[in-house]
């Protein structure tokens, strides 16, 4: 028997006070690593094109958008070629929508695991949020290739890019904690995800610039529009990488506020409901 101090776990019906137990999370970091590794390994198994799918999907989206919205509808693109303008939006948005759709089903899909063993349940929604980053970074290579092709170079503001990526992950995780814990109790979430996805898609400035909102509806509406965190993220991507506009700090700031609120409320709700997951699963 080891002589280290023995940790004592108390199991009772009361709720725990800690919202996120960082010490415990650190202990389970290897499990998170293998969960993410599993998702990545399994994703493109038994496909012919394999990881190429991470390139094909966004490229086709870009082509379709360029033809329909760029050519036919002549939507403005802040003065840069429409394909690269839309791709800079597709890139973060695809990460957001893919991680949301898999995070919303993450708990429902892992009942076989968490009804049989204890580990911090938060790892379950955290896994897809992290593993979808792989597709994101692969698709990022296309953006770099397009920048070279169109002769567009990033500004010094590219130093803010990591911050934008963190904001994007934080938002996904915040909404993900809400959706996953709601979905395990109410399977309605599964059916609602279809239109939630398209709603999020068309309301994000993927095929049009956010400046369009400011022009049409005024600054106040534009600022409120920024409460949708992906608005600031997408516009921030365009500014820092393509250098069309100065960094839109106003809408990024708005996005940060709502993203942090979503994250904290999501964590609280997840914590409050996680003790019944095994009972309702």
């Amino acid at each position: 028997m080891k002589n280290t101090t023995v940790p004592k776990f108390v199991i009772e019906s009361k709720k725990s006070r800690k919202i996120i137990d960082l010490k415990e999370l650190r202990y389970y970091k290897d499990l998170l690593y293998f969960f993410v590794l599993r998702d990545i390994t399994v994703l493109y198994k038994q496909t012919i094109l394999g990881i190429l799918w991470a390139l094909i999907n966004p490229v086709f989206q870009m082509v379709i958008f360029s033809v329909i919205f760029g050519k036919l509808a002549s939507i403005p693109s802040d003065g840069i070629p429409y394909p690269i303008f839309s791709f800079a939006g597709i890139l973060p948005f695809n990460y957001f929508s893919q991680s949301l759709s898999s995070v919303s089903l993450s708990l429902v899909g892992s009942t076989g695991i968490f009804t049989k063993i204890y580990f911090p349940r938060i790892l379950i929604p955290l896994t897809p949020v992290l593993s979808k980053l792989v597709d994101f970074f692969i698709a990022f290579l296309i953006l770099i290739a397009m920048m070279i092709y169109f002769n567009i170079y990033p500004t010094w503001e590219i130093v803010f890019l990591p911050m934008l990526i963190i904001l994007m992950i934080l938002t996904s995780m915040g909404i993900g904690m809400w959706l996953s814990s709601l979905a395990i109790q109410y399977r309605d979430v599964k059916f609602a995800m279809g239109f939630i996805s398209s709603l999020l898609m068309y309301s994000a400035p993927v095929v049009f610039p956010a400046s369009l909102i400011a022009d049409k509806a005024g600054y106040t509406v534009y600022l409120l529009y920024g409460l949708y965190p992906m608005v600031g993220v997408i516009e921030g991507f365009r500014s820092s990488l393509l250098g069309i506009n100065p960094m839109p700090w106003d809408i990024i700031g708005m996005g940060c506020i709502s993203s942090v609120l979503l994250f904290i409320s999501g964590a609280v709700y997840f914590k409050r409901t996680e003790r019944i997951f095994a009972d309702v699963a």
Partner: protein
Amino acid sequence: MSEYAVRVNDVSKAFLIGLKETRKETLGAELLSWFRSPRKNYNTLKRLNTFDHIEESEDLFWALRNVSFDLKQGETLGIIGDNGAGKSTMLKIISRITNPTLGHAEVYGRSASLLEVGTGFNSELTGRENVYLNGTILGMTKKEIDSKFDAIVDFSGVEKFIDTQVKKYSSGMRIRLAFAVAANIETEVMIIDEVLSIGDADFRKKSLEKMIEISRGGTAILLATHNFLPIQAMCKNTIHLDHGKIVNYGNTNDIVSKYLGDMSKDKARQHWTLEDAPSSDSIKIIKAEVLPVTNLPVIRAGDPFEFRFEFYNMLDNDYDINIMFHLTDDYDNLIFIGSTTLTNLKYRAAKGFINVSCRIPENLLNHGKFTVNKLYVLQGSEKVLYEHSNLLVFEITGDVEYEKGKSGKIDGIMKPKLGWEVSSKKENEVLV
């Protein structure tokens, strides 16, 4: 350091079970109820999801009620009980999978729960990848798995296929690999549910031996099972759960015997009064029972035991009497015919009570369920005076030789002690 590994203090667990919905009489009412149902569904789901305000109600089901026990460091405790007695719920609470409704439990030290083997196995991944995934799910770190990896693969016996996708494994290989991971965890407390009864006989023996080794290494083990062999081999003390309550606690052999005794007592002993005894024209049966002749309350595989019958003879004249019975197993196979005619002795019957006992020698029957299927009372060796079908049903339990390190549960109907001799000579001596 605490002397306890697990303390369970007055734990109860309630579930709200959805009650049957009322059916509408007309199509119109049914349609109307669909539109009203979202609100109703929400209320039902919401109620089933919250346990904060427990009030007695019709659909409240107590899976556990005021259960308390302690498990000391390094000890092994068994939990037995029928299906639905609350064994798994108890283990899930101690494993921190689900919360108790009332009461609390304390677990001292790291614990590993084996409520099934191979939790989280992904068939698209290779054996190696699954070892790491399953190991970390069970609470090991990557470093620990690295150092145990060879032992795991060695125990599983699938080293040739370790880099093959698990979907190409046979189910036996999957189980072996999964169990191998679980068997190599080092924790202070281990919580095991039924996983020792998987795989083929060889593997069961191997895994039980491994568990005994782990418990000797100082790990406290909590073991719930239907299979008494591992409990008898591993646990000094056992809890008997019934309908969510502890009905019995104490020495494992006593608890298991009593549990089995309760299960089979109505058919292992039959007793009638002279007035209501089953009867033919000439013979009444008063009593039939099967008794152990060891000082244990149960009959274990290989133990000697005794049948006792009591008859009442109504014929006036003395005669030569013979008794004969068929012993069958659970599948109605005839094991043997026991008969006094085979003894070359004469037994005389006079009017009045006749007591018969028949001793079954040691090293004859293996574990299993047996039936005294036909009983005949004969006058002379031919004339049937009385016959009785399906008279006694009794159980012979598995033995406890595991404790002595010998092979334990062996399949087969018989458990004979055979006379073996093995001799060998050096080859060159033969040639000389």
